[in-house]
C-alpha cells in the first residue's frame, strides 16, 4: 500500500510525505502522503473535505504546509512557490477556468508566454501554434481569433489545458476535476489527449469525483479520507482481487454505499407540473416540447451545443424566447425573468453553483432563506431568530456539515454547498424543480443524499426536470429521459427500457431514437 515500494524502476515524478495543514478550526491534512511515478496517470480521490484540494494547493504553492516534505522529480523542494514549481515542469489544470473573457483563444493560450518575432509579438505564429495544438493534441477545431467569452465552457476548458501545455516543458500535469464541465463525448477527447501525453512520457495527477473516469484513465489511484491517504490501489496490473469502482468507494467513504440511487415508487399522476410546447428562441432551440408530470423525475441530456443549456436558460427566464409556451401547474408562465419564473412556481438549481447558486459571502441561513425571506419576516422586518432557526432545521434535514447556519457559505465543501442550494427551494412552495447538473463536483456520499432528496421531492408531488451530463445518474434517478440534439428533443424514453450505451449514442447523434 505504501508508495515507497513503487519508487524503484521508473522513479517518482512527485513525492509528498507526511504533509500536514491546519486551518482555523479545521485539520485539512494530517500527515498525508502522495506519490506519482514517472510516466503514469495517478488518480486522487476522496470525498469533499478529504484534503485533495488542500494538498494540490500546497503543491501549487498556494498554501504553505505546516509540516511535511515535497520532492519533485527526485529533488527535494525547499521553498514551494508557484514560480519554482512551474520551473520544475509542474502544470496545473485548475477546476476553475481563469481566462480573460476579452482575449482571443491564441492570446489566452500564450498569455504570459508570448512568442516574439522580429516585430514584437508574433501574432500569426501564436495563432497557428495554438490552433495546431488544439487540433492535434486536444482534437478540437477552434478559431484562434475567437474570443474566450464566446466559447462554451467546455471549449474554455480545452483552451486552459492548451495554455498549460503549449510550452512543451510540462513533466507533471495536475488535473483538478477536468471533466466537471465536459459532456460525455468531450470527456473521451480529453482522455485521448491524456493518453497521448502518457505516451510522450508525461506524468499526470488526476483529481476527480468521477470514479468511472478514474478507473478508465488512471494507472494507480490514491484514496484520501479525513485529511490523509488511506490507500493506494493499482488499477492496471491484472492482480487479484481485481480493483473496481466499488472497492474505491468503500475505501473512500469508509463504508459501503449499497445503493447510490434510492428506490423510487413512481405513482402516475394526471396533473402536469411542467409543460413546454414548441419553444423556439430563433437560434439554438427549434420547437422544443416536453412535459414533466407531478411526482415525476424527468431527465434531460445532451452534449455541449445541443441546446440543453439554452433550454434550461429559457425555463429560467434568462433567455428570450421567440415563440412557444411554458405551462407551470397547467397555468401559463411568463418566462422573461428568473423572478417571474420563480413566482410561477419553478425552483431553479443552476449548474454553476459557485457563481449562480450561492451567495458565497453570506451565511448558510441567509442562503437557505433567500428565496423565501417574506416567510421569516413581518412587514419587511426580518425575524432573525426565525431565519436562523430555519437555517438550522434545513441543515439538520440535509445533513450539511459542518453544522452552524451562521457559517459563511464559502467555507463549505461543494457537496454541502449544493445541499444548501436545494435547501433554499425545499422551504418554498415550488412545484417544479429544474435541476441543472445537480451533482457536479459532489462526492459520492453527498451525492446519494442529494438523490434521496430529489426522490423525496417527487414523492411529495413535485415535478423534477433533472439535466445532467452523467447518463448513469439519469438512468438511476429518472422515470423518463429526454435527449436533446441540435435544439430538438429527439428521444423521450422510459428510463427502465434503455441503457448507458443507447443514451450516449443518442446524445452524440450516433443512433436514431427507437
Amino acid at each position, binding site marked *: 500500500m505504501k508508495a515507497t515500494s513503487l519508487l524503484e524502476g521508473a522513479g517518482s515524478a512527485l513525492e509528498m510525505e507526511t504533509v500536514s495543514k491546519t486551518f482555523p478550526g479545521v485539520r485539512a491534512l494530517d500527515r498525508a502522503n502522495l506519490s506519482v511515478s514517472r510516466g503514469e496517470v495517478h488518480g486522487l480521490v476522496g470525498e469533499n473535505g478529504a484534503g485533495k*484540494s488542500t494538498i494540490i494547493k500546497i503543491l501549487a504553492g498556494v498554501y504553505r504546509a505546516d509540516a511535511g516534505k515535497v520532492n519533485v522529480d527526485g529533488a527535494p523542494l525547499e521553498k514551494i512557490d508557484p514560480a519554482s514549481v512551474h520551473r520544475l515542469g509542474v502544470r496545473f489544470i485548475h477546476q476553475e477556468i481563469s481566462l480573460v473573457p476579452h482575449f482571443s483563444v491564441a492570446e489566452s493560450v500564450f498569455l504570459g508566454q508570448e512568442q516574439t518575432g522580429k516585430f514584437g509579438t508574433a501574432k500569426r505564429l501564436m495563432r497557428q501554434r495554438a490552433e495546431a495544438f488544439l487540433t492535434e493534441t486536444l482534437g478540437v477545431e477552434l478559431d484562434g481569433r475567437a474570443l474566450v467569452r464566446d466559447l462554451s465552457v467546455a471549449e474554455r476548458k480545452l483552451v486552459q489545458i492548451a495554455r498549460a501545455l503549449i510550452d512543451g516543458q510540462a513533466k507533471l500535469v495536475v488535473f483538478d476535476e477536468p471533466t466537471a464541465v465536459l459532456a460525455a463525448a468531450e470527456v473521451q477527447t480529453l482522455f485521448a489527449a491524456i493518453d497521448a501525453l502518457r505516451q510522450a512520457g508525461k506524468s499526470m495527477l488526476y483529481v476527480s469525483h468521477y470514479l468511472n473516469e478514474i478507473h478508465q484513465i488512471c494507472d494507480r489511484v490514491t484514496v484520501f479520507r479525513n485529511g490523509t491517504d488511506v490507500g493506494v490501489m493499482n488499477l492496471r496490473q491484472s492482480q487479484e482481487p481485481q480493483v473496481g469502482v466499488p472497492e474505491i468507494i468503500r475505501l473512500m467513504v469508509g463504508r459501503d454505499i449499497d445503493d447510490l440511487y434510492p428506490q423510487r415508487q413512481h405513482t402516475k399522476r394526471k396533473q402536469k407540473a411542467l409543460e413546454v410546447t414548441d419553444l423556439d428562441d430563433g437560434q439554438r432551440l427549434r420547437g422544443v416540447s416536453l412535459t414533466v408530470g407531478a411526482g415525476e423525475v424527468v431527465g434531460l441530456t445532451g452534449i455541449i451545443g445541443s441546446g440543453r443549456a439554452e433550454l434550461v436558460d429559457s425555463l429560467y427566464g434568462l433567455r428570450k424566447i421567440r415563440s412557444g409556451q411554458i405551462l407551470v401547474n397547467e397555468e401559463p408562465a411568463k418566462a422573461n425573468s428568473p423572478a417571474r419564473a420563480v413566482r410561477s412556481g419553478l425552483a431553479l438549481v443552476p449548474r454553476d453553483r459557485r457563481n449562480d447558486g450561492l451567495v458565497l459571502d453570506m451565511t448558510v441561513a441567509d442562503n437557505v432563506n433567500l428565496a423565501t425571506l417574506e416567510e421569516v419576516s413581518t412587514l419587511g422586518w426580518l425575524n432573525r431568530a426565525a431565519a436562523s432557526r430555519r437555517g438550522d432545521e434545513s441543515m439538520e434535514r440535509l445533513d450539511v456539515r459542518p453544522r452552524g447556519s451562521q457559517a459563511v457559505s464559502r467555507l463549505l465543501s461543494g457537496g454541502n454547498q449544493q445541499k444548501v442550494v436545494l435547501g433554499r427551494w425545499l422551504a418554498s412552495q415550488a412545484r417544479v424543480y429544474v435541476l441543472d447538473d445537480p451533482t457536479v463536483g459532489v462526492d459520492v456520499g453527498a451525492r446519494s443524499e442529494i438523490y434521496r432528496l430529489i426522490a423525496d421531492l417527487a414523492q411529495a408531488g413535485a415535478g423534477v426536470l433533472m439535466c445532467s451530463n452523467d447518463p448513469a445518474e439519469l438512468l438511476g434517478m429518472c422515470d423518463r429521459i429526454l435527449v436533446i440534439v441540435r435544439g430538438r428533443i429527439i428521444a423521450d424514453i422510459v428510463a427502465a427500457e434503455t441503457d448507458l450505451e443507447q443514451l450516449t449514442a443518442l446524445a452524440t447523434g450516433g443512433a436514431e431514437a427507437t
Partner: protein
Amino acid sequence: MTSTPPSSADTPTAVTTRSGWGRRLVDSLSRYGFVIVFFAFVVFFAVRADAFLNPSNLVNILEGNAVLLIAALAMTLVVASGGIDLSIGIAIDFGGWFAIIAMRDYNLTWASALLVGLLAGAAVGTLNAALVVRLKISPFLATLGTFFIGSSVQQIYTSGGGQVPFREMSESFRSLSTGAVLGIPTEIVLAGTVGLLYFVLLERSVHGKRIHAIGLQRSVASVSGIRVSGYLVFVFIFASATVALSGIILTAGLRQFTPLSGFSYLLDSIAAVFIGASMHPQRRPNVAGTLVGVLFLGVVSNGLNLMGLDFNLRDALEGIILVGALALAFTNRNNRAAEVSI
C-alpha cells in the same frame, strides 16, 4: 493508515507555522484595525490639542459631519447593491437648489419646499436608475454621465455657477440646519434618523438582505426569484433622494445655494463606505461601519485643524492617514484562507 516515511535525511520543506491564536490576533487586528487607529487618533489629539475633548468640540464634529453621514449612508446603500453613485454631488445640489427656488419663486411653505428638494434628488436618481437598469450601463459610467449632465445644467441656469441666495427664508426652513430638537442640533437629529432608517432598511429588513445578495452575487439573487431590476431602481432613487436632504440642510445653513458644492462630499462618502466595509467580517458595506468611517474622517480633519497645521499640509496628512489605515485593514485580507476545503 500510512507507515512512517523512509528516511529523515532529506531536508524538510519550508515549514512555518502560525499558531491558531496568532492567526486570530492578526485576523482581529485587521478587522478592527480601523477602530484601533481611530481611538489612537482620539487619544493623540486629546493629548496634543487641548480643545479636542471639549464637549462643544465633540458636538462640532458631529454637527459638521451630519451632512457627510447622510451622503455616506446613501452611498452605502448603492455600494451594497453592487454599484456606485458618482452623481451624489448633483443630487445634493439639486435638493438645495430646488428647495430654494420653490420658496423664493413659488412662495411654497418650508415643508413643501423640502418635498420639492427631495423630489429633485429623486429625479436625479431616476435618471441613474434608467441608465443602469434600462440601458444596462454600468453604474460607474451611468452616474458619471449624470454627474456631467447635472453639472452642466447647474452652470447653465446659474450663469456659470453664480450663487443663488435667499436671505428671507423662513425660520422653520432655516432651523433644519440651525435649530435644535430637545437641545440636540437638528442636523444631528436628522442624520441620526436617517442612520436609523438605513440601519433598519439595510441590516434588519428583508429588502436589505436582498440588496446585499444582489450586490454580492447578482446572478444568485436573480435565480432566487429576487426582482433585481426593481431593487436597483429603488436603490438609486432612494439614495439620491436621501442625499438631496443633505443639500437642503446645507442651503438652510448658508441661506444660499452654491452650484457644484455637493461634489466635495463624493470622495469622503466613498471613503467612509469602504472604511466601514473593511470592518465587516465579509468586507461588506454596512451602516454601522459607515458611521465609524464618517466619524474617523471627521475626527482626523478636526484634530489636525485644532493642531493648527498648515492648511495645505492637512489634506496630505489626511490622505496619508486614510491610506495607511485602509492598508492596515486590508493587508491580511488576501492571506486569509478563503477556502478551507473543496
